[in-house]
């Protein structure tokens, strides 16, 4: 019941915040968001699952009741946690709290709505990561878009409407395509399933129950469904060339929203890829290894090169997110413990580090009111602590050892290099690894121009040290990044436990 309680409390917190006066909203939202943090940490402490939730493993905190009936299918309220979702839940709650604190300074109007929507989004995100029934999962999945749409569209920058609509329409169309893909699988399974519970579907697919549908043979249906679902999730990740909504959304979104977008929302895509495509249709995934690896490498290199051309700090981090998420795809297709486990670990690591980077950019923006690299230099002189954390975060992003990013990237590289899905995986891995050079290039250039050198700033604003509540979330994130980097086993053991069953899956057809 703890999952239900967690989600319900978060919804309730959202409601309370929504009706509070603006003056108290920020503080109240922070206080209320601590409840899910404590709840998720408690869950983590009580966590006793083993194996993969979809493949017959023990699921922690499982609830499974029939909710309503739809034709031949029972719709269940089924939620539960395994080693893949547990870290993401902790990430979501912690990052939301920090994002709320970081919103105190920049959000000056309609605070109660803003913070209410943040909490509302958190509740839905928790739903996405815990739901084990397709219907429940899909409701949460779609419901995440709504607060995000308003958060960008109401509190965003000058082109906020364009960005919000683009984000909403793009991801919504993607969801539609994904939905068609998934439902065709359900139809292909025919009478062999009686509900839309993900474990039941995954196990039926493993048992070879997939039949033909709409004139397609089982194999062709699996391929079509795989492609449709991959497209749907790839938009969310985003995988190049389906990424163009991301920079616009990031640039227009206020900083705390960018933090949530990069930190958690992108992980929905990779999480779903892992849960659906790579767990349910492993054989099909292996047969598509070449195009998927190509897309992964393209995302990494293309995203990194694009980041190199940007002048807007937020755009730089946005494009580098595309690059980092490419690593996740590379790790997933590797089908090795370190590959898939590293990909999952990268979801958490990138969530922390990209959150850190966006927040750091936001703190600088709060005082300078510009994010353009060309508009300032020597900011470190006036904001030494922020600059210090910015540098540390940037090095984390570059994959500095003993920070979470390195652990994740190294796991992925190691897993991908020794992968057996393709003969040429070492080459793809080597090509993708070049991303670590480019990422160093653009972050070092950006830092050199903005943070270092003689202090110069054209704007009318007084550039001074950031207040404590702006810097504190940065420090917390940095600390978490280092802790995870020094001791990745905090999450990596449970992740491996959950992903290892996926690797053993044989072909179903």
């Amino acid at each position, binding site marked *: 019941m703890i999952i239900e309680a967690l989600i319900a409390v978060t919804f309730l917190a959202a409601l309370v915040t929504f009706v509070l006066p603006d003056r108290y909203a920020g503080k109240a939202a922070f206080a209320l968001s601590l409840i899910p943090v404590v709840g998720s940490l408690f869950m983590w402490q009580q966590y006793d699952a083993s194996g993969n939730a979809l493949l017959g493993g023990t699921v922690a905190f499982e609830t499974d009741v029939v909710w309503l009936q739809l034709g031949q299918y029972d719709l269940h309220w089924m939620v539960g946690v395994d080693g893949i979702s547990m870290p993401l839940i902790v990430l979501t709650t912690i990052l939301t709290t920090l994002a709320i604190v970081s919103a105190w300074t920049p959000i000056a109007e309609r605070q109660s709505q803003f913070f209410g929507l943040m909490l509302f989004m958190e509740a839905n995100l928790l739903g996405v990561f815990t739901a084990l029934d397709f219907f429940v999962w899909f409701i949460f999945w779609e419901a995440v878009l709504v607060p995000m749409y308003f958060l960008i569209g109401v509190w965003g920058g000058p082109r906020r409407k364009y960005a919000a609509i683009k984000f909403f329409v793009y991801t919504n169309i993607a969801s539609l395509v994904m939905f068609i893909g998934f439902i065709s699988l359900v139809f292909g399974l025919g009478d062999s399933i009686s509900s839309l519970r993900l474990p039941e579907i995954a196990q039926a697919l493993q048992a070879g129950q997939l039949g033909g549908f709409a004139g397609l043979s089982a194999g062709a249906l699996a391929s079509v469904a795989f492609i449709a679902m991959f497209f749907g999730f790839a938009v969310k990740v985003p995988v190049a060339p389906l990424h163009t909504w991301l920079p616009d959304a990031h640039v227009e979104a206020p900083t705390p929203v960018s933090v949530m977008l990069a930190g958690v929302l992108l992980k929905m895509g990779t999480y779903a890829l892992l849960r659906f495509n790579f767990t349910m249709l492993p054989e099909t995934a292996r047969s598509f290894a070449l195009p998927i690896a190509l897309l992964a490498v393209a995302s990494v290199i293309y995203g990194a090169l694009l980041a190199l*051309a940007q002048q807007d700090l937020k755009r730089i981090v946005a494009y580098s997110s595309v690059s980092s998420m490419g690593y996740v795809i590379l790790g997933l297709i590797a089908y090795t413990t370190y590959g898939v486990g590293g990909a999952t670990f990268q979801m958490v690591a990138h969530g922390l580090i990209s959150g850190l980077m966006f927040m750091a950019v936001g703190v600088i923006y709060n005082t300078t009111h510009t994010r353009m690299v060309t508009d300032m230099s020597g900011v470190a002189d006036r904001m030494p602590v922020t600059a210090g954390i910015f540098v540390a975060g940037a090095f984390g992003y570059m994959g500095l050892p003993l920070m979470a990013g390195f652990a994740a990237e190294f796991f992925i590289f190691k897993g991908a290099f020794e992968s057996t899905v393709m003969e040429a995986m070492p080459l793809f*891995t080597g090509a993708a690894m070049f991303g670590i050079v480019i990422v160093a290039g653009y972050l070092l250039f950006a830092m050199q121009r903005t943070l270092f*050198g003689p202090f110069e700033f054209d704007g009318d604003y007084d550039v001074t040290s950031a207040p404590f509540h702006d810097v504190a979330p940065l420090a917390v994130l940095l600390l978490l990044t280092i802790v995870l980097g020094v001791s990745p086993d905090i999450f990596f053991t449970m992740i491996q436990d959950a992903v290892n069953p996926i690797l053993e899956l044989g072909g179903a057809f």
Partner: protein
Amino acid sequence: MAGILEFAPAIVLLPFLSFLIALGAGRYMPKGGALAGIGATAGSFALSVATFFAVSGGQNYNQTIYTWAEGLDAVNLTFGLLIDPLSAMMLVIVTLVAFLVHVFSLGYMNDEGETGLPRYYAGLGLFTASMLGFVVADNLLMAFMFFELVGLCSYLLIGFHFRQDGPPSAAKKAFLVTRFGDYFFLIGVVAVFATFGSAAFAGPDAFPVLAEEALHGEHSVNTFLGMGEQAWFTVVGLLVLGGVVGKSAQFPLHTWLPDAMEGPTPVSALIHAATMVAAGVYLVARMYGFYVLTPTTLAIIALIGGFTALFAATMGVVKKEIKQVLAYSTISQYGYMMLGLGAGGYVAATFHLMTHAFFKALLFLGAGSVIIAMHHNEDMWDMGGLKDKMPVTYYAFLSGSLALAGIVPFAGFWSKDEVLYETLIHGLGGSPILLAAYAMGLLAVFFTGFYTFRMVFLTFHGEPRSGTARDPHGVRWNVKGPLAVLGVLAATAGLVNMVPVEKLFGIKGIDFLHQFLDGSFSSLNAHHYAELMPYSSGYIGGETGTVAIGAAVSLGLALAGAGLAHRLYNVPEPVEHTDKLGGIKTTLYNNYYQDEYQVWIATGIVQPISRALDKFDQGIVDGVVNGLSSVSLFAGGRIKRLQTGVVSNYAALLTLGLTALIIGLGLIGGWFA
């Protein structure tokens, strides 16, 4: 001494502790946290010396101490300590130099009223800790991780004066260029794991041993891309070598090092003598058992080393700033070490690593002393005549210079001579590549002698050429002390390994370093490497003759270079003789335009590509997305015109629709059949 090796982790942790103290509490402490650093490095040094003696007594230590990532059904990634003669020697060097640099910093930073000292001492502490962690690493992954941390620290310290334009740029360049090398290194690490399932340097599953056994067909390892074992090992070796070339500033990734002179001088001393740059060569020595299996890799190492030694030495000839000369001498000297390693002279290269650490730290600290005296003017043409004003610095610097130039009996002579000797005999044994590398190394000896003494004469001899040189700023004990210690070491460190004396005069047992390095694990000792080596030896006039000829030639060339410098520059009013070189000088002064082409790669190729891609992304990729939305908006805009607002039109459409429906139904229903 029993159990002293159990304290080895403290050697690494003490400087790390000083990093934390300086970072957290440095601003509340006297001297900005320097004392914590001095205490920590002194403690580390003491422990290292104890460790050194324990290792001399035959103890070795190889222990996994921390599981970084535990693999379920996969390999564990661990941290561990490997203390053998090589790492014990390096520990002593690093901690000693770090300690002296900390003390020197009191004079160079504190006394000069620098701000941001806690940051500086925190950086030094972390730098020392990272390097020590790298030195004791028992596997390649751990080595890589600390290797990268060393890179981070170099970034922080080179860019210490971040309020100016130059240092941040130099710091960025240093990190980026070495990162480029580390990219290959990281692939190498991953490849080692994928190939052997382990990256340990020593122990039962040490990867050099596994590689050796695989080549003997004793068991099989994974190779990739359809390569045979020999070819694949060569590839892996070259990949790891990428990191070495980057960090040890070998051609073509040497360009960051001269720029790194933007950092405070004590930092330069640390980087060049004992930490970052040494890390590359140390890595090759650490996994020498693997390199020695692949002749191609060895030949490439030797060629890179020989070429870099010569290449950098020629550039050192024309530089104006004292630190620039030293920077190029560093590149050149590390070239010798690479040459030694590539030529099969494991002990010789390690020996040179040690002596170089002493005399290069000395030279940099001496230069730092001169720079304090000159009020931070580094141009040698503004100096002159400092000999009488700062005798301690002068004699210490002279000792270091003699060592650098390779004049007997100073430290550099013995080690450089042994490197060249090993190259020569293995070249004569049927390896023309080594002979070519030897020729380059030999030629570099001449240039080394020349630029070293050009520097000495310009700085200390002749008449003062500026006001500050006439009235230099005094230096205190904290500057002189480290200089004196290192000055003695630079003069005497070579005596630990007097191989030529042994061979010429038949005095057995004075090659202490050889004996010491043989005391390691059986798979890691010099003897084992010699057995595996793919070279055979050849001599001119017997072993003794070759030793004598080799030593005579290299000493002669060094003296010739020094003599030429004496002739040209040891005069009261020296002039820029190198101006006579004309265009060659311009080329040399501009470092053979190496920086230009690398900058061009960055700004002339990568940047335009990224801008073009940005246009492509905004125009085409996003254009398609926006195009799709425009198409639907346009289509909607057209179709909405059906909604005229005129009731009659709606009625007409309604009627037409009904009619069409009826006709359609009729057609299907067969009414008109």
